[in-house]
């Protein structure tokens, strides 16, 4: 996947042929990814697929061993102020200074950002029910995540980067995070990049999705056309068969006897062509459905 689908003027993040090795492990393998301005970009993949490593390159925490990373057209390693000042970031670890009180954390973070919106920060603090006198150390997991979210949002960043923001959190805090994502992009031109293994959340909010598997980008498309591309069809044959025949765009087959279920990638074609193909195999289509992102992920990762 080396072609660039978006020109750099319209994209906020442009990753070109980035590779990264840790010891003998190839963590990123010639990754190209372009995050367009405006909307939500979901980065999906299993544990250890390379999502966090890729995000660390976007933040300038890791230097690419080969290839290039541009954020707002700048190199995050050599121009960290220009890049990080326009970006909000929340990580899974939520590395916050434990010894500070909530009020101090807010004031401390505010000093870094000329665009800090004090009223918005206060609004978020009240909404998240954060006690200004509480020490970060003593906060629950959920309140920690909310503190991290507050300081990532209050300077109204052009780009919000969230690395596994929901991991290990209860549904109420997960709701806060999703609604922060939605409010962020509802303001024109703002962009959210978030990684998650909770694919139902990605399916709810993402405009575009890239999937990383073993350090490679194996899928990158708009969610809409991804959903249009995959179909699950169940065929019924007249007689039991041992080996299911090929079908248009087949990725995976399951079944026994007369009934076989296919997962097909029909990208670019009309779904009705599957029906035609099935009939020419002498089978009847007994069920046809679109697939959830979760199922698409499994079908792609297990290939």
């Amino acid at each position, binding site marked *: 996947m080396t072609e660039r689908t978006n020109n750099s003027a319209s994209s906020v993040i442009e990753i070109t042929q980035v590779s990264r090795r840790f010891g003998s492990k190839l963590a990123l393998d010639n990754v190209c990814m372009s995050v367009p301005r405006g*909307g*939500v970009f979901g980065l999906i993949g299993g544990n250890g697929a390379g999502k966090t490593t890729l995000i660390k390159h976007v933040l300038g925490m890791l230097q690419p061993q080969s290839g290039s990373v541009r954020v707002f057209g700048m190199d995050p390693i050599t121009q960290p102020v220009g890049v990080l000042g326009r970006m909000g970031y929340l990580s899974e670890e939520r590395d916050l200074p434990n010894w500070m009180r909530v009020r101090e954390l807010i004031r401390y973070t505010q000093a870094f950002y000329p665009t800090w919106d004090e009223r918005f920060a206060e609004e978020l603090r009240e909404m998240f029910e954060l006690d200004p006198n509480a020490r970060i150390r003593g906060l629950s997991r959920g309140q920690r995540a909310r503190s991290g979210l507050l300081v990532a949002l209050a300077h109204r960043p052009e780009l919000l980067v969230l690395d596994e923001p929901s991991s290990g959190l209860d549904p109420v805090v997960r*709701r806060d995070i*999703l*609604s922060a994502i*939605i*409010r962020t*992009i*509802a303001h024109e031109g703002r962009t959210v990049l978030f990684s998650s293994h909770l*694919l*139902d959340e990605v*399916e*709810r*909010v*993402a*405009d575009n999705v890239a999937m990383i598997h073993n350090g490679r980008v194996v899928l990158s498309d708009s969610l*809409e056309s991804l*959903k249009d591309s995959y179909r*699950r069809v169940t065929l019924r044959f007249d007689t039991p068969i041992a080996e299911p025949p090929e079908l248009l765009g087949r990725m995976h087959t399951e079944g026994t006897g007369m009934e076989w279920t296919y997962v097909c990638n029909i990208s670019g074609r009309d779904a009705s062509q599957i029906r035609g193909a099935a009939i020419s195999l002498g089978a009847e289509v007994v069920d046809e*459905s*679109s*697939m*959830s*992102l*979760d*199922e698409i992920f499994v079908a792609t990762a297990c290939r």
Partner: protein
Amino acid sequence: MRIHISTNDGVPIYLQVVQQIKYLISAGRLSPGDELPPIRVLAENLLVNPNTIARAYRELESAGLVEKRRTAGTYVSAEGSRLAKRERTRILASRIDHLLAESDQMDVSFDELIKLIHVRREAMNNSRAKEFADD
């Protein structure tokens, strides 16, 4: 307006919104002239991408069920309920087709199926009556 989104069954979210609003219109819970929630409000309520809601509203608009007014709001059109009723018939017809095909595969005769529908309706009415009695 109550809409429920599920990400388990693979149905695209915009389509779930379209189908449920169609249902609300055909069931008379949304009447001609009623305003739909603004896109951003509904997106935040349902926790889905605003573009998804915008797409659902566009589909409903091109189907003639809702119309945009100059004040930027989206309203159920005068034609809405008539069109939605036609839609309702279409939805029910496809469910019935499934039911007929399934009972055929299970070797259940048409008369048995009708009998079963009566039995189920009776059971449903009874449990509803019980709910009211409990209130």
